């Protein structure tokens, strides 16, 4: 265990002082240059995939575990327990127009390694999970389900489990019912000390299928 920590600490120091050793800028990453394969113990402590891929409830075999030095993320919506399946209600949004609309409930896990996005000019990262889908009423809908501000110096590795959406997932109408193509993506807004404010979208995404019926009994 100690050698792993020592390894990681040395690797972190290396990255701080020799940023060219890993080929990742704030906005884009190339997968091959500089990516090293460390010892299996180090790999096991940070379960990440080579690209930003989303795995739906699959167990990753040992062969897939490689520590990579560019932003990797892993969103998994929970389908292992019946209680965690996404479900719907049809209620009035008391803050909005007075009609009943679909309200979605999704539970998710997020695993993300954001170390390589932080360079000398990054003050903070505004990370957000958004759901994108299409309905009869609207060709494009995007709803932010969850967000987090990560300041420089905060732990850039997230292992969030059993997360519930921070904001109400209301549709403009009843378009979530039976919608099988609701896509979740993780994106981030880089806030520099001074300069451009880029908005980057992680390259993986997950589809959340909503059921055809409304849930009357339970809530989160």
């Amino acid at each position, binding site marked *: 265990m100690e050698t792993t920590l020592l390894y990681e600490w040395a690797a972190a120091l290396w990255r701080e002082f020799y940023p060219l050793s890993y080929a990742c800028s704030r906005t884009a990453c190339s997968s091959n240059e500089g990516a090293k394969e460390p010892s299996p113990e180090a790999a096991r402590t940070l379960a990440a995939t080579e690209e930003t891929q989303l795995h739906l409830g699959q167990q990753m075999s040992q062969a897939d575990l490689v520590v990579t030095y560019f932003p990797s993320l892993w969103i998994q919506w929970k389908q292992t327990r019946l209680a965690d399946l996404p479900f719907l209600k049809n209620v009035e949004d008391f803050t909005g127009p007075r009609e009943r609309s679909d309200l979605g409930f999704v539970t998710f896990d997020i695993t993300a390694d954001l170390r390589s996005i932080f360079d000398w000019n990054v003050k903070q990262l505004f990370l957000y999970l958004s759901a994108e889908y299409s309905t009869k009423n609207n060709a494009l809908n995007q*709803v*932010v389900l969850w967000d987090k501000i990560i300041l420089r110096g905060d732990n850039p590795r997230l292992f969030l489990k059993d997360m519930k959406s921070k904001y109400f997932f209301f549709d403009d109408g009843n378009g979530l019912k039976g919608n099988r193509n609701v896509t979740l993506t993780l994106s981030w807004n880089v*806030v520099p000390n001074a300069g451009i*404010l880029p908005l980057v979208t992680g390259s993986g995404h997950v589809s959340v299928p909503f059921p055809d019926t409304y849930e009357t009994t339970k809530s989160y």
Partner: protein
Amino acid sequence: LFVFSSGSMEPAFHRGDLLFLTNRIEDPIRVGEIVVFRIEGREIPIVHRVLKIHEKQNGDIKFLTKGDNNAVDDRGLYKQGQHWLEKKDVVGRARGFVPYIGIVTILMNDYPKFKYAVLFLLGLFVLVHRE
């Protein structure tokens, strides 16, 4: 250009930071973007992040915003009966920023004595320099 006068987007932007904006109408409005918008009947524009969008096939869009540092979305700030913002309310999109620069204008607004002092010093400077 825009200078922040409130703390609703902290810790990203503080009072006095200067924001660079663009206003290309063809840029689509998407969640996560920082937009500057004006509420009908109010003078001061607000800079917040887009939380939710619903866009129709023909491009008509309605969206909701929220300040990073606020607990709730901006519906309470909109006009009475208004639940969404539209493209016409948008004044610009945030593209870049420089910190602290605008603090001088804020100090001058908040402390009129400071403004007079600055003007006085500027006047002195001009007089002295002419020699």
